[in-house]
Every structure is written in C-alpha cells, then in structure tokens.
C-alpha cells in the first residue's frame, strides 16, 4: 500500500517566461540549465518543472524535467536534461537553446516524490534518475542534514555520471555497471543488495529513480532488504523526449 499522504504540493502554478542564465554540460548527453524566473517559487526536493516550446504557428511541445537545485539555494533554479535521440524537446534544448534565450516553464509540480528533510532518506538512482535525488542531496548538505541521507547512484561508465565533481562524499556511493574508473575497488556489475548502505535505519523512506527496469529491480531489492513497500517512492524516467 502506498501512503495516502496529504497534499504537500502546490495547487496551481502559472506559466512563466524563464530566462536561461547558464548552461552546464554534465555529460556528453546531459546539460543543466539555470533558469531565472520572473516570479521565483519555492520548491521541494524531488519536484519538477514543465518546459513548453511554442512554434510560430502555435504548435507546442512540453516535457517535464526534474529540478536539480536544492530548495533554499539562493542561486538560480536548475534543471538537468538528458538528450534523447529523436526527442523533440530534449534535442531542441540541447542543440538550439543558448544563454539569454527565454523558455516558457511551469512549476514546481509534484507532491509525492519529494523529500522535506523530515525522515531518513535512502536515495537510489540509475543514470539520469540521479537528478531529483541530487536536489535532495544538495538540500541535505545545505541544511546540515547529511546524516539523514544515503545515496547510491548506478551509471554505466564514469563518463555517464552527472554532477561528478560534486556528488562524492561520505553519504554517497557509486556503482558502475560497464566501466569503472582506474583503481575503483568494485568491479563493473549491476546494482546488487550489497551496494545498498546497511543497516537501513528504521523509519527510512526510499526514493528510487531511473528507467522502468532499473526502478523495478531497485525497488524490489529494497523491499527484499526489509524496507516496507509503502516506504518506497518510485519515479520512472521514460524515454519521453
């Protein structure tokens, strides 16, 4: 059974015309966009924004992107976008958008896959699924709550790791499935139960984000390790362009 939480998300949020004030290449296939909003809105770690592109004839295409920046971070809102081949919006954001451009955005959205720093959090991300978890990690670090957070990120190779220069720390662990950095102690392999930090503190809530296959494997692994299923929140990143 999933928790029937009371709403912690916003009731409604208007479209805003955000200005792109910074673009950072995370990997060959992922970029982070810093967005300045006319009316900044507080967000929760784990929420997302919708980005809408509009053609001159009125045709629109919208996609949701997780917020990577921490709630309360005085710097600009940051979203990270994976470039999906053939993806209408992600390819445009990657190939066309430059600093100074304006984008219609709407958010923050989502009241389920959020962490407010109130319970121990076990974060398990695969590939681009690290993005909302990074917002949680950054939030914990910014607010002296790192003791509450444990993060495991699974990536194929070192070149696929987002936030590489920032993510390392005593609260985070990395799993490489294909290629590891030189002298990395763990051989390349898929996520196993031994990769999950244990013991898992009582009352821990788990946040699993990644592809559907990764999310299924990781969430069932956590249940098998004793995390009650209602305490496992899952977000699946599909190739939705």
């Amino acid at each position, binding site marked *: *059974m*999933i*928790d*029937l*939480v*009371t*709403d*912690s*998300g*916003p*009731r*409604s*949020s208007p*479209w805003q*015309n955000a200005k792109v004030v910074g673009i950072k290449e995370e990997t060959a296939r992922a970029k982070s966009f810093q967005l300045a909003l006319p009316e900044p809105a507080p967000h929760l770690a784990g929420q997302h924004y919708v980005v*809408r*592109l*509009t*053609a*001159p*004839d*009125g*045709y*629109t*295409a*919208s*996609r*949701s992107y997780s917020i990577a920046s921490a709630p309360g971070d005085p710097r600009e809102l940051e979203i990270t976008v994976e470039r999906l081949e053939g993806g*209408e919006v992600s390819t*445009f954001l990657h190939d*066309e*958008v430059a600093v100074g*451009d*304006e*984008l*219609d955005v*709407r958010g923050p*959205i*989502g*009241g*389920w*896959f959020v962490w407010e720093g109130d319970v121990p959090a076990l974060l398990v991300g695969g590939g681009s699924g690290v993005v909302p978890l990074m917002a949680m990690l950054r939030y914990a670090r910014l607010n002296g709550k790192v003791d509450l957070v444990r993060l495991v990120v699974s990536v194929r190779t070192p070149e696929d790791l987002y936030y590489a220069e920032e993510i390392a720390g005593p609260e985070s662990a990395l799993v490489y499935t294909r290629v590891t950095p030189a002298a990395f102690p763990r051989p390349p392999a898929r996520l196993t139960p031994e990769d999950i930090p244990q013991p898992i503190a009582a009352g821990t809530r788990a946040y699993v984000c990644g592809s*559907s296959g990764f999310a*299924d494997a990781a*969430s*069932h692994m956590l*249940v098998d390790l004793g995390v009650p*299923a*209602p305490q*496992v*929140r*899952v*977000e*699946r990143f*599909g*190739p*939705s*362009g």
Partner: protein
Amino acid sequence: MGRFTRGFSGRGQKERDLRLPPGQYDTGDRWPVLTAEVTPRVDTATWSFTVDGLVAKPATWSWDEIHALPASTFAGDIHCVTTWSKLGVNFGGVSIDTLLGAAGVQPSATHVLARSSTGYTTNLPLADVTGDKAWVAWEYEGKPLPVEHGGPARLLVPHLYFWKSAKWVSGLQLLDHDEPGFWERNGYHDRGDPWLEQRYQGD
C-alpha cells in the same frame, strides 16, 4: 500566450494526427511505464474487485466471476499527462456499466473513487465511468495485460488522462461528493480531460 520559442518550428511541421489532443505526441510502438510505487505481485487466485459505497448492495467478483460477465472491448487512443499518446490500441475486459448495474447505484451518487491493491486512488465523476466509456480491462491486444501496465487488471477510462485508469484496480467506491485521489492531491487535475489540457490543479 502570444510568444514563441526562438528557433523552434515543431519538427518541420509534419501533418499533425487529428487523434492527438493538444500538447500530446505519438509514442508509436513504445508504451512508457510511469508508476509511483513498487510494482505489486497480484495473484489472480486471490484477486477480487468490489463496488461499494452508495450502492444498493456492495458487490464483489473473483477473477473467474468477473470473466463470466459479458465481455466488452475498447479500440481507440490513450493519452498520458506526461504528453505521450498511444494511438489505435485495443483492450478487453468488462464495462463499468455492467459492474455498477449489478451493485445498483443509489441516486445520490455523483462520483467514484477507484482504488488499487497498492493503495493508489483516483477520483472520477460518475458520468465519466458510465455510458460505455470505462472498463475493468485485463487484455491488451488480445493478450493478458502485463503487470507493469497494471495487470492482471486495470481501470480503463481512455477519454481522460491515463493516471485515471488506475493500475492493479481492486474496487470502486460510489460517493455523493468528489474526493481527490492520489495524484489529484499531489497537484494534478480532478477531471483530466486531455482535449481541454486539464493537466494540473487550476487548469
């Protein structure tokens, strides 16, 4: 709106499929999976579906009993709030009309709250699940509905965004008021009509 995105033309403007509601794209052969909880293991030997709340008498069907009801199919399109649509799909199951008819809906009922074995809920106006518009579906393209898509059986309300089509559905409660479900309490729209782009609260 009145403004457009610099450099965006909309993919060279191929002719747009009129079956696509505004803001949606055709996902083609893919069927993305978007669920917020651990995928449950639902055994058809213990499966049941219950209609309760404002009914003449609550009714419960086992897997075999619900299959003995008149079969009903849907052929058409489905639309996810995350902007993908899947066109020309076929589902099989039983019409919600059949289930409500067996339980007997009280005149005061105006809404339903659908529930799943995971605890997921979603709210719908009664009018959106009656009149041959909604099903409990267990077949997809002539085969058993896969578990990641809500199998063994899910609610199917294809004229609304697909989060209304609760996966692993286990019952419907008839209510005399609207009671927001899981996503509806988490920022999403109470009705979710894709042709009106009712995606989020306030749309």
